[in-house]
């Protein structure tokens, strides 16, 4: 339809329509179809935009739509990941700290054990370092003073003639001040007769030492024979109680001090007898 055809003539109205010719109808139909196509395109575009809008709204709702939101979401994800790693590291640190505490505890135990073994080794080494009876007694005193921390104590030896124990070396009091002890009598006599080490730790709190009330009696034994005892009456002021290593030292002394005392006494006696015999032989051969 051209402009002229669409223009109404002056003096005409809608109530008086003019009949259309065939060409005009075709033009109208073509124009109508174009309008229909355009309308379809608009509808499609509308649908597309509605779909896009729905999609954007959906993205907005999920928080992953706009670039800033993407970044926030990414950072949140990263943060979450780092938090997981941080918690994992914290957990690992706690495990390592626990292991360290465990190692420290073990190290202290090993160090304690080393100390104990060192003391036992030194005691054993020193006891067997000489065959001189007096030196052996001196070493026993040194061990009891320096390694156990006793202040008043004595080494008793058994005398079969009197069936009693006689002090032969001591610390804190002259040796002759320690009374003889009949085997089987009192705490000392009973412990030696029973060949059992006896500790009276309840007496550690007593204000004064009593020669009838020992703190510890350590019988000196060679197999089933008891040859004497180490009897402790008082510990040094700075030594409030017996320790585990003391008990181990007592067991070591019970055996090693006994053999050292016995061997040295035997050796000293044999040396004396040998000397006497040598003198006798010299006397015979000279005459």
């Amino acid at each position, binding site marked *: 339809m051209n402009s002229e055809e669409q223009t109404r003539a002056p003096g005409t109205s809608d109530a008086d329509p003019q009949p259309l010719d065939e060409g005009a109808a075709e033009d109208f139909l073509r124009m109508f179809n174009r309008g229909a196509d355009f309308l379809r395109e608009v509808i499609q575009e509308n649908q597309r935009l509605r779909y896009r809008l729905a999609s954007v709204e959906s993205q907005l709702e999920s928080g992953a739509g706009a670039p800033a939101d993407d970044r926030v979401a990414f950072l949140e994800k990263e943060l979450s990941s780092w938090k997981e790693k941080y918690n994992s590291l914290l957990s690992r640190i706690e495990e390592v700290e626990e292991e360290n505490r465990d190692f420290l505890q073990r190290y202290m135990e090993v160090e*304690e054990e080393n100390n104990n073994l060192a003391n036992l080794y030194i005691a054993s080494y*020193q006891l067997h370092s000489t065959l001189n009876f007096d030196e052996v007694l001196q070493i026993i005193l040194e061990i009891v003073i*320096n390694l156990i921390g006793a202040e008043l104590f004595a080494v008793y030896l058994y005398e079969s003639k009197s069936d009693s124990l006689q002090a032969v070396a001591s610390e804190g009091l002259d040796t002759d001040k320690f009374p003889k002890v009949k085997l089987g009598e009192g705490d000392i006599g009973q412990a030696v007769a029973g060949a059992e080490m006896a500790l009276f730790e309840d007496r550690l709190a007593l204000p004064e030492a009593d020669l009838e009330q020992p703190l510890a009696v350590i019988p000196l034994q060679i197999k089933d024979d008891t040859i004497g005892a180490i009897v402790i009456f008082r510990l*040094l002021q700075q*030594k409030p109680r017996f320790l585990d290593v003391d008990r181990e030292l007592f067991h070591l002394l019970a055996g090693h001090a006994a053999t050292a005392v016995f061997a040295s006494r035997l050796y000293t006696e044999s040396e004396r007898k040998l000397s006497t015999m040598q003198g006798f032989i010299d006397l015979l051969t000279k005459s």
Partner: protein
Amino acid sequence: MSRNVLIVEDSPTMRQLLIMALRKIGDLTIDEAGDGIAGLQKIREKVYDLVITDINMPMMDGLKLVSLIRQDERHRDTPVVVITTESGEEDRNRAFRLGANAYITKPVRAAQVTRKIRELLD
């Protein structure tokens, strides 16, 4: 460089325990003396980086030895450790007044000696 340590102690048992404790520290040359006079003789012959002494000893006690060590120009600043059975405050104060750097009471633990000596040598 090896450091020189002198042990002045009349008990062979204690000397052995102290030597065992010192061996854990490492490069040390350890000399021994059985009484104060012998200890003083060694101090006059050689310069020591540390001296350990007992108090109750024959010939000369450890406190006298400490005071004589301090009179020796070469040992004026040498650390001196007193190891003794005497736990009284008076003995302790006297030892520090005379110039001792540490005071350890018996019975001693090897680890305790090692720690103290290491601290003084460092």
